[in-house]
């Protein structure tokens, strides 16, 4: 078991995959982080040196991820709503925000567009 940013991962997990479990880290960001610390794309968590794991944790703690990022997104939506804008209202109603038709195909909007927008990650708010 290796601890990265306070969460433990089994040794055979890919570093890329373990980074992308955090809310706010996707393929691009994980690639950037790994290139920065010279970790090859297919590296497993178990093969990392201790110093690299510490560096990763330090890097992640400086980034705006997980709850900090969720809070920012939610604040942005709440601001829109409090101002009474159309976009804020659409968020509150769970409907498409950017002028899409609503006759069909709004499943994604229904799933995502809410004030308490959270997404998946290691931490739940």
């Amino acid at each position, binding site marked *: 078991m290796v601890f990265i940013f306070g969460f433990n991962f089994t040794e055979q997990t890919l570093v890329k995959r373990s980074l992308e479990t955090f809310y706010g880290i996707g393929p691009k960001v994980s690639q*950037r982080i790994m*290139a*920065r610390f*010279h970790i*090859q*794309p*297919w590296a497993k968590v178990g093969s990392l040196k201790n110093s690299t794991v510490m560096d990763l944790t330090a890097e992640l703690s400086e980034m705006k991820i997980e709850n900090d990022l969720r809070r920012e997104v939610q604040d942005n939506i709440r601001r829109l709503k409090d101002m009474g804008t159309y976009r804020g209202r659409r968020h509150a109603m769970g409907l498409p925000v950017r002028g899409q038709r609503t006759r069909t195909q709004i499943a994604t909007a229904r799933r995502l567009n809410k004030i308490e927008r959270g997404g998946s990650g290691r931490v739940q708010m």
Partner: protein
Amino acid sequence: MPPSICLRSFSQLSLDRSVHSLASRSRLSPHAACFSTSAARFANPSPKKGRVVAPPKRGQKTLNVKRGRKDPQGDVGKRPAPGERKAQRKRIVLRNDNALEVTALHDMAKATILSGLDEGRVLGIPENVVDALRAVEAFKPTQGWGLFWRPATLMRKETIQMAGLLKEVEESEEGQKKTIRRVLSGERLGGKSTLLLQGLTMAFLRNWVVINLPEGITDYPAAQDITNAHTEYAPLPGSQPTQYFQETYTANLLAQTLKANEPVLESINVTTNPSLPLPLPANATLKQLVELGAVNPEASWPVFLALWEELSVSGRPSILFALDGLSHIMKDSDYLSAEVKPIHAHDLTLIRHFIDCLSGQKSLPNGGVILAATSRSNCPSSSALEHSIQVAEQLQRDPNNLLHYNPYKKVDQRVMDALKDLRDPEAKGLDVIKVGGLSKDEARSIMEYYAESGMLRAKVDDGFVSEKWSLAGMGNIGELERASVRQRI
């Protein structure tokens, strides 16, 4: 017009008798039993698909061979362990117990191998060299070693050419030892990797130090694994522009080199005073030096450099530095720099070292041969490499009529610079060995060996050899083996 007997038998086969008139029926002998499978087919109509079959009556036993979800045991078949299937697939088999032992087969001998007298003969590879070749992963699972009693190769024209190169190096004067650099190119299945293996065999026999970067069909380290970002990398401190070293890969390479060259390395003492991150015992041999790097990956690159330094001291054995799968190292690697830009393969220290040797920037004070084999089946495209090889081949054919680079293809300038000597008619050091088809005599020799091994059951005469030689695309040795040994009709 078809004969009437045919028509008659067709009319008998017809099931619908009503179409025939009464008169014709009497004429066509209706009593003969006609051949038909219809009766059997219609006698017991099978239930239609999709129709629910009634459950068996109470007390009646049924055979249920399906294993469903309800089955408590589930699938009890043993699953292969992780990596087992790959190991099976990549296993190198060097012996076929069912093949006949060829009694007349001689081994390659240290004294005579460079003489060139064995041209056109099939020679066995000595036992200890086989172990060394296995250690440096010179055998590939796609080659037909597993078809014969023991590994043997044909001493073809190109092999003799290679032996000549080694001989030239050995016979050059002390202090001005030659470094010969060659790229092996040729058709698919033409025997490039086998020629490389023959070169390695000769070097092992002559007690050279052999360092081989295999193509990586089996396991890493391999030429493709240097660049495909599967092993650790780290920037080399103090290098400008930044170079990257691969500690695990280098450690593995050192371990393989040690295993293959143990007797030679054991006999040489460390004389220079290498600065290593780990302490080296006093009066250490090269074996101990290499072991240090193989066991401690973090020290592997300094140890590799120290080994090279040691081998450059005058009076040491010559070096054969070989690589299979040249195009893997003639492109951007899959590694990323800290700025998320791809790292060119030539910025990896080990490849930089090889390229410096191949391009002639580094020469070997004790002489040596640098070999790079291209591959046709596992090769990322590298137009600069292809162009350089084409120009070199053209130079051998007709030096007055040079090819020009296709301006619509992207050029990798670093590759062009590294292979400058290939395109230069004046430069002598770097050249191409074109591995073409066998001559008919060579084909006959190898086919006689096939026949003596019991793998080819035919009379090997001129006609047969010519036929197979033509079928194999003018004597392509891989195709020849395919046509005569592997193919069973």
